[in-house]
């Protein structure tokens, strides 16, 4: 391991004269799992990159896909399993024609396959990764303040 927790601006081309924005952009990749352990391979960047910092200050295309999953994907997964969806519905004009009695087979089937549990796990781990990226981005912003 060559570098652990690279300091903002260390080895930077702009040096101490760089602006706050430049410091953020230059070090957005350092404050992540891949950056902390100086891993520059494609696999390390895909899995261990900081998507929040990349989207805000660095390469937006790198962070966008990850954040889509963290925010939209996890919510869709958690909400979508076993939930009926409607499109273009005006709820004010919808009247209730539901039949009383027990629900159909879908909840039981979903319970057997464990889809809801898997969705919960997937959304949970996505949120944890997102939260850790937010924390690392906060550290990056603080680090660049002290660097100036």
């Amino acid at each position, binding site marked *: *391991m060559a570098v*652990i927790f690279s300091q903002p601006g260390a080895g930077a081309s702009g040096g101490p004269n760089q602006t706050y924005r430049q410091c953020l952009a230059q070090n957005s990749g350092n404050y992540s*799992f*891949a950056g*902390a*352990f100086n*891993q*520059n*391979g*494609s*696999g*390390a960047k*895909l*899995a*261990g*990159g900081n*998507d929040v910092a990349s989207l805000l200050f660095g390469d937006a295309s*790198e962070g966008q*896909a*990850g954040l*889509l*999953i*963290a925010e939209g*994907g996890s919510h869709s997964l958690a909400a979508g399993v076993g939930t009926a969806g409607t499109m273009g519905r005006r709820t004010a004009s919808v009247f209730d024609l539901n039949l009383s009695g027990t629900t159909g087979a879908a909840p039981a089937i979903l319970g057997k396959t*464990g889809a809801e*549990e*898997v969705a919960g*796990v*997937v959304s*949970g*781990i*996505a*949120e*944890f*990764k*997102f939260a*850790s990226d937010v*924390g690392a981005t906060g550290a990056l912003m603080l680090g660049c303040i002290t660097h100036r």
Partner: protein
Amino acid sequence: MSQSVKEQVKSGLRLGGGLAVFLIAMAPLADGFRRIVWAAPPHQLLWSPIGVAELIVAAGLLVSTAHLWVHYFGGCILFGTIKGCFALMAGTPIPRLELAWAVIIFSVTLVLIVAVISRGTPLIDRIALTVYVFSLGWSADKGLFMPSPSLAVGLAALLASWSFYYWRPHGLSTEQD
């Protein structure tokens, strides 16, 4: 402060602590591998008592906190899988074959890790996860998640733990029948 908020704070601190231990464990792990594996000529190992001690410390930390850091690790793998699929479709400077390998490795690992989390991360799973992290570290000097024999060992460990828990209930139910 209501009880639920207290519980949330405690849970957050617990998960954060687990992630911190995971990152701290990376230091002795990386230095141990540097002394024993990375500095050695190909297909050879160097004997280093300090390196061995560092790897033992790292293994102890990783096994004891695996139920916490597995969530972060699984998140990384999930993001890697999705971002890899996006990159495969959109095209990047990274060769497609390399990306495809990474996506395959991420996907298999993700399925196994989701199964581990669903089971509540018992001891055998913790050991398998630690073996997987060690297998990643073994060839980390050449790049993480690159196809290598060590990575195959890590995946085999996860698969073995999955098989153990998958077949065990079936065996019990057969005996009961």
